[in-house]
């Protein structure tokens, strides 16, 4: 029996399963992403979840400025996500405007791999903003 999609403010939406990749974050973005799972934000209630494998995911949510060491693992994870897929840059570092931009071992965000489909800026972005941005963006996906 297929579920037709959950209701969020009256609009039908689809579930969004994401694999998280830390590509050099300070762990601030991780903490706020984790907070989305607490009872105040309850992202699963909106059909959003962080899943254990890229094979189960609709896309990647990436944090950090993409350190050189994490560049390959990031690409490998991206390649392992089945099509169609989406790339979300979470936080200024991943978005390419964070404080570590010019450090020698940083590649300046996810852009070097692929232009992200969604950029959630902030250092770190607040959980409420993350949810809001994802909700607005999902509407544009139709």
């Amino acid at each position, binding site marked *: 029996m297929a579920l037709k999609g959950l209701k969020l403010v009256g609009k039908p939406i689809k579930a969004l399963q994401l*694999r998280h990749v*830390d590509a050099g974050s300070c*762990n601030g973005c991780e903490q706020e992403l984790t*907070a989305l799972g607490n009872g105040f934000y309850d992202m699963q209630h909106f059909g959003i979840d962080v899943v254990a494998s890229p094979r189960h995911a609709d896309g990647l949510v990436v944090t950090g400025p993409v350190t050189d060491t*994490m560049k390959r693992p990031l690409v490998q*994870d991206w390649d392992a996500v089945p099509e169609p897929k989406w790339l979300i840059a979470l936080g200024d570092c991943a978005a390419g405007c964070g404080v570590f931009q010019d450090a020698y071992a940083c590649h300046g965000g996810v852009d070097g791999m692929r232009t992200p489909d969604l950029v959630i800026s902030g250092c770190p972005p*607040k959980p409420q903003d993350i949810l809001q941005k994802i909700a607005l963006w999902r509407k544009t996906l139709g």
Partner: protein
Amino acid sequence: MIATLMTENDWAAHNVRRKNLGAHVLGVTAFAGGRISIHWLMPSGQIAEENWDMDGVEFPSLTVELPEVAWDEREIHDMFGYRPKGHPDLRALVRNPRWPDGFYPLAGPNAPSKPQWIEVAPNNPAQTVEGEGVTIMKVGPTHAGIIESGHFVFSIIGENILHVDLHLFQNHRGVEGQLQGRPIGSVWPLISRICGADTVSHQTNLAMAVEEMAGYQIPEEIQWQRILVLESERILSHLNDLAQIPAGVGFSVANQRALAMKERWQRGLEVIFGHRLLFDTVQAGKPLDVDIEALGTLIVELQREWRPWRSLVQGHHGFQDRMEGVGVVRQSDALRLGGQGIVARASGLTFDARQQMPLYEGWPLDYASETSGDVSSRFKVRLDEVEASWRLMERVLQRSRIHGALPVWEPPSDLAGQAVTFSESPHGLNAHIVAVDRGQVIRYHVRSGPFRNWPLLAKAVAGNAVGDFPLINKSFELCYSCLDR
């Protein structure tokens, strides 16, 4: 600061003597130009410095006598190309096969430029156990949850871990290199983001370094504010870790209720200090903008949720059983490897750098300590420390109620000198070694608590079931970020 110049024969003897006197290594710092400095925090609170000036690119390794500096020396080898002579295990720690030959990012005086990385996989050779029935299991660097990146190579027999080889520094950004040559006044946002979990401790170290170099003494009201924000961070971090440990055994109610407390605390901190994770709050010589009344109310509100939660987790026999005897850190190992913070205090050691910090002088503080060295002890120490921090904050708040306008001090633009500062972060002793000339950073070395505790984690998991690794790991809850930098 007591400084002595070494001859080759004294190097080991002097440093070992410091250790035997009960001192803690703040940092082993290399400088471009060939100097190695070891800073020790003496039990008296004084900082002692031992220097080795190289003639060439070799310096005598201390790892055999002082195993806690094994990683420091490997890092120096990777970053400067200086060779610790006699080091028993000089594998790459930070470097990996992608680094071009001859690229030593900290060997020069300026911020290194981005090199041409070699197009190969970043994996260093792993150290594994060989033998019949031994399986190798590789985990990471990306993980199945919301976790920082790290790569672990387990050697397993049956259910049991024989050995884990840590391949960290996946998140190495090059922060110390990035800081070189910058005006010291411009490094605040970077220092604040070395680690999202210990940010206040890092900010405070920088503030103290600038003030020390300029010879400025902050008024006591600003000292009190710093205690408040440091303790607020400790509680925030402990609440996070206390939520994660029950998650490691599937105790969802305890996990969710602790996450809710963390969220409430963060929301309060945002109103009181201006940031949910306390980034960019401490400044050299400047008062914090803190709402004393609101902080007092927040503590009372949190305690209302805390008490029943503490009874829940402590009264849950299943949960207690799962933590007991798991992931034991022996006291002798903690001592030998220079264990810090909760990891050391859960293994019968009592060191807490707040005892030596001038900032806390005169304030009564209950120091938590447990003896069994297992997950349960680390959980219990955190429980007690949260309550001790609240008690301290309440005392400080009491005294902070009335004060007039506080002076605002501006550091001089031509700041010069060297300072070694430290604080007790939620993850242990955190030290900064800072050298500045004409207002510009010459060297900025960060040595945080997790650096000394990672090797202890590897020791603690050996002999345990592989299924308990997540639980043991969460009970350490070491940041990768301030390790990798």
